[in-house]
């Protein structure tokens, strides 16, 4: 289209302003010297200093990271298996139920997943004596369950988009099935597995509703800590904490996206060079 779509560009700018003004405002006010979080009282970095000395915040961050690393790794393993199942094993008994179980957590409201998990953990403790206390273990189990289906969705769509004929060709040329899996299938889906892990990791790090139901005494993750403070209203130290999280996550996601895009481009280039060398 040659004409400049003025209306569309205006809407895009408006949309981006809408996206970023609240975040920028939060970052600006995190440098506010005043105790009143929304009234400007001069520049200061004292809230950041106070945060560094806050043991509660550090402990919550460590707990959140532990849960996120373990749950996203388990979720990636289980989710990848489920993705391979749905994309490659077309027919097996119970497939309908299985694909339902993979889709349902994506659309089920958090509150319902939260109370249903909590009820189960309480009843299990009543009947078989485990889990004796809710906390790290129960949060991690719940996080694995709802984040694995995101990995499944990503891996499954990658496998469906990938050309199955390459696997067949490798088999015809005498590769053993494990070799095919190692040399062809896994490399093809590795970007999907990587982004699946990253998604599961950030979802776990961010989850608050399901965590608030499955947690127990003494297990406060970072979102739970922020949640309990935010309920009381806007405060300058949460502004500072929020700014740090937003900036760190922003840089992390940008870097990850950049690395993945570069890897993809290099793979495309390699493939093209290989074609040319053989052609």
């Amino acid at each position: 289209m040659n004409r400049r779509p003025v209306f569309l560009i205006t809407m895009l700018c408006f949309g981006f302003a809408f996206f970023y003004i609240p975040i920028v405002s939060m970052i600006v006010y995190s440098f506010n010297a005043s105790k009143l979080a929304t009234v400007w009282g001069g520049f200061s970095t004292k809230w950041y200093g106070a945060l560094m000395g806050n043991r509660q915040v550090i402990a919550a961050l460590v707990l959140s990271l532990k849960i996120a690393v373990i749950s996203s790794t388990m979720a990636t393993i289980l989710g990848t298996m489920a993705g391979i199942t749905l994309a490659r094993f077309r027919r097996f008994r119970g497939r309908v139920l299985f694909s339902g179980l993979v889709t349902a957590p994506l659309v089920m409201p958090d509150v319902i997943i939260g109370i249903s998990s909590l009820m189960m953990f309480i009843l299990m403790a009543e009947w078989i004596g485990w889990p004796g206390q809710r906390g790290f273990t129960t949060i991690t189990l719940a996080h694995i369950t709802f984040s694995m289906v995101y990995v499944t969705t990503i891996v499954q769509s990658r496998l469906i988009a990938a050309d199955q004929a390459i696997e067949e060709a490798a088999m015809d040329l005498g590769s053993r099935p494990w070799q095919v899996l190692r040399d062809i299938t896994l490399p093809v889906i590795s970007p999907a597995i990587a982004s699946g892990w990253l998604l599961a990791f950030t979802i776990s790090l961010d989850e608050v509703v399901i965590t608030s139901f499955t947690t127990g005494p003494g297990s406060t993750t970072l979102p739970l800590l922020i949640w309990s403070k935010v309920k009381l209203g806007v405060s300058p130290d949460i502004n500072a904490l929020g700014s740090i999280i937003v900036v760190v996550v922003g840089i992390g996601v940008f870097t990850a996206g950049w690395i993945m895009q570069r890897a993809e481009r290099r793979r495309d280039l390699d493939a093209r060079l290989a074609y040319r060398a053989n052609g």
Partner: protein
Amino acid sequence: MAGAQRNGRLARWFHRRGWSDIIIAAPYIWLILFFLIPFLIVLAMSFATRTPTAPPFSFGGENPVLNLRGYRRLFEDDIYIRAFLTSISNAGFSTVLCLLIGYPMALCLTRVSTSWRNILLMLVILPFWTSFLLRVYAWMGLMGTNSWFNKLLTGAWNGVVPDDLAVRSIQMMNTNFAVILVTVYTYLPFMILPLYANLEKLDQTLDEAAMDLGSRPFRVFLDVTLPQSIPGIIAGGLLVFIPAAGELVIPSLVGNSAQPMIGRVISDEFASARDWPMASSVAVALLILLVIPMMAYTYFSGKAEQRLEDQK
């Protein structure tokens, strides 16, 4: 015709050796244990009787095994009906606003050059990766009566309306307006991305043909672009509406506590009132309400997947 032949050779080999059983069984058993069974517990609990024991429920007793008290109360006590209506209207308005803001943004993304497009897409996705809770919190800072944003809006309002309608500040926090605004803010990427994916695939030469034949740009949009983007609109709309209707965090932080949404009601029945059967009944009712859009979503995404496979 496909049948058993649709399993590839690799899959068949894994199947013969029993490996596929492990690959299938591990996630299957996990989801049954930690998703299906908890859900069945909620379903059974919705028919239980509340008792002052721990855990606070029992089956049977003076009532028949299936106690319908919870479901009867859904219709008798108008707190539940009002909560459902509030949820549906808040989620509905949010979905429409997301569509009105997100559609032009998605369309614009398909019209810019590729190098710009990647950066802009990244900027759409970035808020989605950063903390949900903090994005809600950021708006709490803007909506408070002392904030610069509220003062700006108040000034604009007072400048436009006659003096007798002038206000000292605009009450935004703890209203349904705040819930809708923040819901639109947090779920907008879910609308833009499926719409963009859909619009990007459209053949732009159709637009140009229509333009060459003398259609005006807005007519081209109405007659050519819009009808082709219905699948994207449906996908985006459902991705916003379903989670927005069951939302708990946003109404708890910025909503009007006199008009709770359904997620809040479930949570309060469970945690404050310790009425597990009632909380379960409300949860099941919410699921029944959402099951139609959920199935629509599964149906449409299944169809899209099928199309992808057929293209090969």
